[in-house]
């Protein structure tokens, strides 16, 4: 039973394909059908996850802010996404008269495509990778960069000043954060010796002392690289505190100002799917992918672990969003280039030391020092650079 639950999705697929095969369907059609089923399942899972998250995000934000959140549509407000969807679809689709309507129309599509494409290489469970690419990570970042074009298309095509400002910000931000994002991901590839996500996940298998999982996030270099990856993931998916392109309080809605109705919903959906993809990548690279955190928890199927971890990371993103104010554009860029980039190099070095110092206590000390010292130095220099200081105030009686 356990093994069947573990491989249940694959078993069902194989059973279905076998059934079709017994009717004499040629193999190449079977391959296409198989791919279509996998694609359909993934899109279905992620879109329903998106629907669930859009309501959970609002509920979590509300609870952080001591409110109830949506609780009118259906039990606990769970049908809220359906209501939202109906609202979005029935709204008028406005296109400004002076907009470049082709670009304006294409932007949400271009936004959606890479968000869905990158889902192909993520290992969702044991032996559950839709497309087993040897250079999966490379593919992920290469395709993921496509969203930048979409954001810029949206900003430029709208012919709105707020949109252009938002698009300019988005380009500056995404390109700056792409660099530390990739470098921090490369660190894991370096340790595990492969660019394939499945190989990276299996490199994190096993337990030290029998109960401590050997996830990369639990090593000094992996923690640093993971944190950098996480911060960059926030920035790449335009989430608070890096939501400058939308910049609600400054730029109204940034590149989305002139979008309404279903186009807006597509953007919204793409952003959430993109966020899940990058969360999935984060889980794959640093949190042991689909592996259970403790040996005896193996009884729960691996794909459940994967989804659970993704949801946890998404929850922390919502939590961060509820807490932090937005950065300013110059701080944002300085943070990327002057702090995150050097720190990701430090993580790089630290990982190298870890590898060559034998992954023992010495390696711990060395790699901790290599990331810790730059962190304190750089961090303090960085905060002083922006004259961040505690102040004393004078009182007069």
């Amino acid at each position: 039973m356990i093994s069947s639950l573990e491989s249940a999705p694959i078993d069902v697929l194989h059973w279905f394909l076998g059934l079709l095969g017994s009717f004499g369907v040629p193999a190449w059609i079977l391959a296409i059908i198989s791919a279509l089923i996998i694609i359909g399942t993934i899109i279905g899972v992620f879109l329903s996850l998106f629907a669930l998250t859009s309501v959970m995000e609002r509920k979590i934000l509300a609870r952080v802010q001591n409110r109830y959140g949506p609780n009118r549509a259906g039990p606990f407000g769970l049908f809220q996404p359906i209501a939202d969807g109906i609202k979005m679809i029935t709204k008028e689709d406005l296109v400004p008269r002076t907009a470049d309507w082709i670009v304006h129309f294409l932007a949400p599509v271009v936004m959606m495509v890479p968000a869905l494409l990158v889902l192909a290489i993520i290992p969702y469970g044991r032996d559950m990778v839709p497309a087993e690419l040897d250079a999966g990570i490379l593919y992920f970042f290469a395709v993921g960069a496509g969203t930048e074009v979409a954001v810029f298309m949206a900003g430029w095509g709208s012919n709105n000043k707020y949109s252009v400002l938002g698009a300019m910000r988005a380009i500056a931000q995404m390109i700056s954060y792409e660099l530390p994002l990739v470098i921090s991901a490369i660190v894991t590839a370096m340790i595990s010796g492969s660019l394939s996500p499945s190989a990276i996940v299996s490199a994190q298998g096993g337990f030290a002392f029998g109960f401590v999982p050997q996830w990369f996030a639990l090593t000094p270099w992996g923690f640093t690289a993971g944190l950098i990856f996480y911060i960059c993931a926030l920035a790449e998916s335009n989430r608070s505190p890096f939501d400058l392109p939308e910049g609600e309080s400054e730029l109204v809605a940034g590149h989305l100002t002139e979008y309404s109705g279903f186009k807006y919903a597509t953007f919204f959906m793409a952003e959430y799917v993109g966020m899940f993809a990058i969360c999935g990548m984060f889980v794959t690279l640093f949190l042991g992918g689909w592996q259970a955190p403790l040996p005896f928890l193996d009884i729960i199927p691996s794909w459940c672990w994967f989804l659970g971890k993704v949801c946890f990371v998404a929850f922390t993103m919502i939590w961060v969003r509820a807490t932090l104010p937005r950065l300013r554009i110059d701080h944002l860029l300085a943070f990327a280039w002057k702090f995150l980039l050097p720190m990701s190099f430090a993580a790089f070095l630290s990982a190298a030391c870890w590898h060559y110092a034998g992954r023992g206590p010495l390696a711990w000390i060395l790699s901790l020092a290599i990331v810790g010292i730059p962190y304190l130095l750089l961090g303090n220099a960085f905060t002083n650079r922006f004259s961040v200081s505690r102040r004393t105030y004078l009182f007069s009686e």
Partner: protein
Amino acid sequence: MSFLPSLESPQTIDVSLGPQHPSTHGVFRMNVTLDGETVTRLQPVFGYLHRNHEKIAEGNSWLAAMPYTDRLDYICPLTNNWAYALAVEKLAGIEVAERAEFIRVITAELTRLQNHVAFLGFVLGDMGAWGTALMYAFREREKILDLFESLTGARMMCNYMRFGGCRCDLPPGWLDTTRKLVDGFPKFLDEMEALLTGNEILLARLQGVAPMTADRAINGGMSGPVLRAAGVDYDIRKVDNYGIYNRFKFRVPRGTVGDCYDRFMIRVLEARESVGILKQAIAVIPEGPVVNPKAKQRGFRPPAGEAYGRIEGPKGELGFYLIADGSDKPYRFRIRPPSLINLTLLEELCVGTKIADVMVILGSIDIVLGEVDR
């Protein structure tokens, strides 16, 4: 892309921030010229909420102007009431009942508390913190508004002060509820400070942004927390000793740099001082009538003359300049709106900063459009 060329140069774009904009605190509008993200010119445009309050008041009786003052700075109606009542009392030489003076101090300091905590929330909203701080602030403000409702009958449009006193006495148990709230308030301020004042992003966003020297602040007519943040020790509660403020011990905080962070922190510190004043006032409030029985409300005709009365409102110096000609209507009714005059230096403060800072600077000045446009 076919923007109209900017007035300044082809390198810049003109953006009209407002009057419909998420964070201009109402229908304020700024015509901003941007060079990239940097502001090179900023021109405030007023009047979208103008209803000529002064003309309305000049056409009504002296008493009938009182409910209109609620609608000036609708976040803090009770201090507006007090400023008007104070000016009229100066004009006609009316004594204020002893108990009413205490009630005025208590309500005014409660108003200051709720204004300042709401301010913290609004500034964080302007910085894009998704309303978390705002909701915490409103959670506490709600309790103060409930107090106002049980005292005056309305949460925001209180219409409570009268010439020579207040409209009605405190309901039974009101002081106990207030004491409980005041005692719990520092805990809430601690929570707010833990959330906000150490946050590196917030510090980077506020510190060093738009500093103001003391001389410039005085010449520009800044008042209230904005003036004190610039390092000027000037609190009308201390200087004019209006009401009975000389009976309470409190300190006046002042900043050193005069930037957004100082303006932000001055509010937190002032809220803590207000808690102290409230505790003292609740402890010693005497019994007695709440309105001077000699003061006439209906058909009130002050002797001919003029008076300028001002108080330290939560947003700054709120003054009323009244001219009476002996009739039952004000001859001239002029409001000195702190929100409007504190915007005098807005352009100076904003030029050279980023567009995101404009919202923070505007937020740190703390305006309410009801008062700016009147």
